[in-house]
């Protein structure tokens, strides 16, 4: 059976499973649509949240970014897991106790202000929509590669599938679908990693293999890798080369953003008890850690494999002949994501750092007659190409295809649900049309979901930037706007309506402006005044600005609240009650 048929078979079977589950668990009431009737076990919820959380960025992109940069990109690993500590300790149990459906509902009630609720809805829609655009871009790329169709066709197919189960299923459908998706994506990620770890280190656990011994050289794997990459003029893999302040702020932004993303927070409304919300965050992180502990191993081993397949035995003086290149290179050349250009006309592949600042190295390659690096490898193909590089069987490659799509689709669906529930529940039922019937509310939720998919698909066709940039924007915005308001709402009795609104607006607007200054206004290319290579504020890149936006949000909320009147007694009582698990009961629908 050829690879294309295998891909169709695996991807098709996994989709049939997701859609089947969505139909089986179809939502009947509004409460089921948003929150699965709160009948979800913490382990099940943890698994679904993990699938919801791990998107195309985690599955397809992250290991590639780590592979090509090494230690400096550890921010992704720490940032995207460390946020769960904030979530578990500072938000999840209290929001579950509060017992409503959406994040803006909490902000509106705690800050006794429809304006606060409206501002929260705006923050939520801005952050979630940008995130969905990134996912739809990923969906398009993955579909087009594996179904061998054009990028736009792939995007339309993906949009149709997301629409089908998110719109008709609601939260309950999405929860069980996401459990299935988690199983598919973690299997798809781990199996090739185990094979490769066995090949290189003899250790079946990739996370241990990373710090193990490279069988062939008898040296520790990371030392072998450091030696190979520095031989080729690159920075050593384990060294720290970037700016320290930027690395700290970037990590912090990703952490706070994780705890502030509404589609993740909403998950903790769906467990039966406050105690379960605490456990649930832990289970979620366990399921995420299974992938995140494997990812740095995948990155390092893929980099090693890349070098040893382009240079015989990893020896810089023995580049392979282009004509004798391995099959995986031929396959990926077709997509244009891997390119070879024979600059010195010797028919061999020279892949090295031609922008090295090491004079000795530059003199050496010049003496060998090299005229620049001849191979360009897109970082995003690494995880998908990994099984091919390691010459694993065809079914593993097809499984990885299904896994990548599961990651992208599950996140897109969760985000759409968060958007639709805040539009229907917070905007229409809460403010515009308070007397709307349950059926009308469900219909509004579905229509807003369809509109959001339409917008995201359109922007996914003409993305404002790379998926990773769009995703970073979403994190920065959630960090700067939603997280501080939620945290202060629980941990301070003094923050009032005016403080919260001023804080959220400051965080959102300042962060948006900083990002637009670097990425272009509304992402229109060429309208940017600065670039991330030379940012406005010293070393602080636009992707790291979320942490500063959050600090401004806290500061403004604090000063404005202290300059204005104290919150009324019933709000102080509300904060008191949110802090105590007793009497949580079932969800209250107003």
């Amino acid at each position, binding site marked *: 059976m050829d690879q294309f048929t295998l891909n169709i078979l695996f991807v098709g079977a996994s989709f049939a499973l997701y859609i089947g589950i969505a139909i089986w668990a179809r939502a009947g009431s509004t409460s089921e649509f948003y929150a699965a009737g709160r009948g979800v076990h913490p382990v099940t919820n943890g698994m679904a949240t993990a699938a919801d959380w791990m998107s195309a960025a985690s599955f397809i992109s992250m290991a590639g970014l780590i592979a090509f940069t090494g230690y400096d990109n*550890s921010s992704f690993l*720490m940032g995207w897991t460390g946020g769960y500590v904030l979530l578990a300790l500072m938000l999840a149990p209290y929001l579950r106790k509060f017992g409503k459906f959406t994040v803006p509902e909490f902000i509106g009630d705690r800050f006794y202000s429809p304006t606060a609720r409206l501002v929260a809805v705006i923050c939520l829609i801005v952050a979630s929509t940008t995130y969905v655009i990134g996912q739809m871009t990923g969906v398009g790329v993955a579909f087009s590669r594996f179904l061998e169709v054009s990028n736009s066709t792939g995007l339309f197919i993906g949009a149709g599938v997301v629409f089908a189960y998110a719109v008709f299923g609601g939260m309950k459908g999405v929860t069980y679908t996401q459990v299935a998706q988690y199983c598919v994506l973690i299997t798809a990620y781990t199996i090739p990693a185990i094979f490769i770890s066995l090949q290189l280190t003899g250790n079946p656990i990739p996370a241990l293999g*990373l710090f193990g011994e490279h069988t062939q050289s008898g040296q520790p794997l990371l030392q072998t890798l*450091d030696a190979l990459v520095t031989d080729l003029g690159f920075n050593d893999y384990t060294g720290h080369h970037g700016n320290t302040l930027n690395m700290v702020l970037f*990590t912090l932004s990703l952490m706070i953003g994780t705890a502030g993303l509404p589609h993740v927070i909403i998950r903790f409304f769906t467990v039966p008890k406050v105690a379960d919300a605490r456990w649930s965050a832990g289970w979620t*992180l366990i399921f995420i850690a299974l992938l995140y502990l494997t990812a740095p191993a995948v990155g390092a081993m893929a980099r090693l494999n890349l070098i040893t397949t382009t240079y015989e035995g990893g020896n810089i003086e023995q580049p392979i002949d282009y004509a004798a290149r391995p099959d995986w290179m031929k396959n990926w050349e077709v997509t244009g994501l891997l390119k070879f250009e024979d600059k010195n006309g010797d028919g061999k592949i020279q892949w090295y750092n031609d922008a090295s600042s090491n004079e000795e190295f530059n003199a050496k390659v010049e003496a060998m007659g090299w005229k620049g690096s001849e191979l360009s490898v897109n970082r995003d193909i690494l995880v998908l190409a990994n099984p091919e590089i390691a010459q694993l069987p065809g079914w593993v490659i097809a499984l990885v295809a299904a896994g990548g799509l599961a990651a992208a689709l599950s996140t897109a669906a969760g985000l759409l649900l968060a958007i639709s529930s805040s539009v229907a529940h917070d905007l229409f039922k809460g403010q515009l049309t308070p007397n709307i019937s349950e059926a009308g509310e469900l219909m509004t939720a579905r229509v807003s979901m369809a509109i959001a998919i339409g917008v995201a698909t359109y922007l996914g066709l003409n993305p404002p930037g790379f998926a990773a940039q769009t995703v970073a924007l979403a994190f920065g915005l959630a960090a700067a706007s939603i997280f501080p308001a939620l945290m202060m709402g629980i941990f301070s009795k003094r923050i009032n309506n005016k403080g919260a609104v001023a804080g959220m607006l400051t965080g959102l607007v300042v962060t948006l402006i900083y990002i637009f200054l670097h990425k272009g206004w509304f992402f229109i290319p060429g309208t940017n005044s600065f670039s991330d290579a030379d940012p406005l504020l010293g070393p602080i890149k636009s992707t790291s600005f979320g942490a500063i936006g959050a600090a401004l949000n806290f500061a403004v909320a604090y000063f404005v609240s202290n300059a204005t009147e104290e919150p009324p007694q019933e709000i102080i009582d509300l904060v*008191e009650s949110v*802090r105590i698990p*007793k009497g949580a009961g079932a969800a209250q629908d107003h």
Partner: protein
Amino acid sequence: MADNSSNNEYWSANVRLIKISLVIWALVSFGFGILLRPLLKGISVGGTDLGFWFAQQGSILVFLALIFFYAWRMNSLDREHGVEE
């Protein structure tokens, strides 16, 4: 709010626990993983230093331990103060 003083005690115990947990959280990631890495250069782990291990693996394991420790400790605090569901 049947028993306000007990509730206040419960809350300060919770805040204390959160503070301790967050100090550890910051120490393993921003501390050992980034800022204090040069100080840990001497301790080698599998071909590299301890700071690298914390940045790519250790911090995640500590985060996990922190969340489960917090959940377990809070659930028993809930019972001690009679505020469990």
